[in-house]
């Protein structure tokens, strides 16, 4: 809660300084107001802060190419995550971060661990509560509400989020509902920097928390739709984030 307050306070200061003309002309809400509306809309800060883990199961489709996959994503406090995508004809694509080691494994490239700028970016953006809209102030240089615009087919507040380390992004929040509805990010990948446009929607309640069940992404000109059908909280065991044997071997020094 205190961390969140620091983020918002710092961001609001920068916004005021950077956009004096727009502030009056468009009557934009503050960053605090934008984030607080989203947090309240999905269940409230208190409920979110009580969460320790989440598991999301669903499907990924690249409909135009006829590719579909089962997806399982798990995240846990403070910054652990893992994802497994099973694609017929291709196999299993896995990624993970255990707080120190960021890794990937797939039948095309084989096992690998992230290093350098890629690792720093993974570390910087790994935060369990960020997934719910509660940000760590220490990780950002500034956060600004830039404008009211159109995104994902609706009116949205565009929020610029500049990280001290790692990929910065634009986040979009629905003017009508207050919910986070998407982002534009430059991801650091082994293939270089990659623009990722995401649209989140179809929020549904899973216990005390509302979560988006549709996530459409555009990467490298390809449209990807992820649909979550099952979301559960606080049931992920710590061994879900254990490094697979091939990654353990990579981490060991020769």
């Amino acid at each position, binding site marked *: 809660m205190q961390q969140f307050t620091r983020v918002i306070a710092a961001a609001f200061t920068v916004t005021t300084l950077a956009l004096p003309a727009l502030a009056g002309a468009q009557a934009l809400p503050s960053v605090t107001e934008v984030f607080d509306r989203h947090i309240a809309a999905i269940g409230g800060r208190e409920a979110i802060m009580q969460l320790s883990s989440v598991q999301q199961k669903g499907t990924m489709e690249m409909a135009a190419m*006829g590719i579909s996959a089962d997806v399982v994503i798990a995240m846990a406090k403070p910054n652990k995550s893992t994802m497994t995508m099973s694609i*017929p*004809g291709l196999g299993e694509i896995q990624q993970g971060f255990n707080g120190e080691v960021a890794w990937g494994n797939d*039948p095309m*490239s084989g096992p690998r661990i992230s290093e350098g700028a890629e690792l720093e970016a993974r570390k910087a953006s790994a935060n369990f509560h960020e997934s719910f809209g509660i940000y760590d102030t220490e990780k950002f240089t500034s956060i600004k509400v830039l404008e009211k615009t159109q995104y994902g087919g609706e009116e949205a507040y565009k929020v610029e989020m500049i990280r001290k380390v790692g990929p910065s992004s634009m986040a979009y929040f629905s003017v009508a509902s207050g919910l986070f509805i998407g982002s534009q990010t430059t991801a650091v990948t082994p293939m270089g920097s990659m*623009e990722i446009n995401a649209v989140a929607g179809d929020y549904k309640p899973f216990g005390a928390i509302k979560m988006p069940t549709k996530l459409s992404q555009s990467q*490298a*000109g390809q449209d990807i739709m992820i649909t979550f059908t099952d979301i559960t909280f606080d049931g992920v065991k710590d061994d879900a984030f254990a490094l697979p044997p*091939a990654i353990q071997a*990579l981490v060991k020094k020769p």
Partner: protein
Amino acid sequence: MLPLATFDTAWSIIARTHWDTTYNGVNWTALRDSLRPRAAAAATQGELRAVLQAMVGSLRQSHFDIIPAEVSDVAVGGAEAVEGSRAGQVGLTTRWSEGLLLVTDVEAGSPAARAGVQAGWTVEQIGADTVAARLARLAGSTDPRRLALSAYRLAEGGLRGAPGTSVTVRFRDGAEQAQVRTLDRAPIGGTEVKYGNLPPQLADLSWERRTIDGRRVGVIRFNIWMPVLGRAFDVAMDSLRDSDGLVIDIRGNFGGVAGMAMGIGGHMVDSAVPVGIMTTRAQSMKFTMNPRRVNTANERVAPFGGPVALVVDALSVSTSEIFAGGLQDLSRVRVFGEQTAGQALPAVAERLPNGDILYHAIADFRGPSGRSMEGDGVIPDEVVRPARAALLRGEDPALDRAAAWAATAPTPGPVTRPRVLP
């Protein structure tokens, strides 16, 4: 309305995704205006496909094609005679060389082997089709690589068929005597895999160890870049890791999932260098190889550091060319065989409203030196063509030459930095 919707969709996809906004010099809007009335008037799937083919063909670039729904939608295990899928086969490999359609390989235990067919024989007639004579008439009037591809397709089109059927083939043996064999078609080897909208493909990998003057040379051959073979390649590398040299035979490998080049290439480099760069209209992506430091038993190992020879031919296409050209640029491999197809553009396969598949390139691809493999393909460091006399002696000239080089070549220096790419 369906023909028009199909045409408009195909046109729009290319308009939106072609990496070159000049469309390789084609006025894309004018082309739509000229072809659209023909699409609207199309009364059959065949007529519509002809219009669509005219559209994609106007680009004069590889990886633009219309795949009929009845070809793409064959289920894995289907019995239809579809190129690349588990149709019945007779166990022959053929190549056009020296003005002849040569048998270059006979699979052990196959119907062709049981019928006594031998490498070095020529194929003159398949069923009622005097294929060799037809191809001979084309020789000289078209690019030799196109002729090689046409020869392959004609031969495969006649030799493949529903399992349980047979085909009568007239050969000419090493003594120039006519040999007529009726060959049964049977499912042969490999793993059938369907990836997205692409038709089912047969994926096969084999490896062997040769000893040449006391030196150990590992030979790996595979026919397609499909992830289902990734593990098999890893296993082969584990078995051949102690070899003095390595030969990778990708003749007749028509490509597949381009990302595979990063993992396979990673077995041969000790640093994360790109095998090339893919550039779409929106962005560039480096195909960075992943140095493979773990074996299949999850033990730490070093990537293979010895000499590596690649064997290619005119039927080495797409990802095969990306891989061969990229590693050749990095001086990590020596390439043997024949000039590759020159069809090396990253592509995707999208469904159209009529059910057909629009196969279309979405990016340019260039190797570490900045060159494109589209068009010229990969020029071998040592050109070695199939020769009938050698085949009749039981030799495989390109593979034998590559293996001999790999046995004695010095260990190359580390690949640390591409010459052009950042």
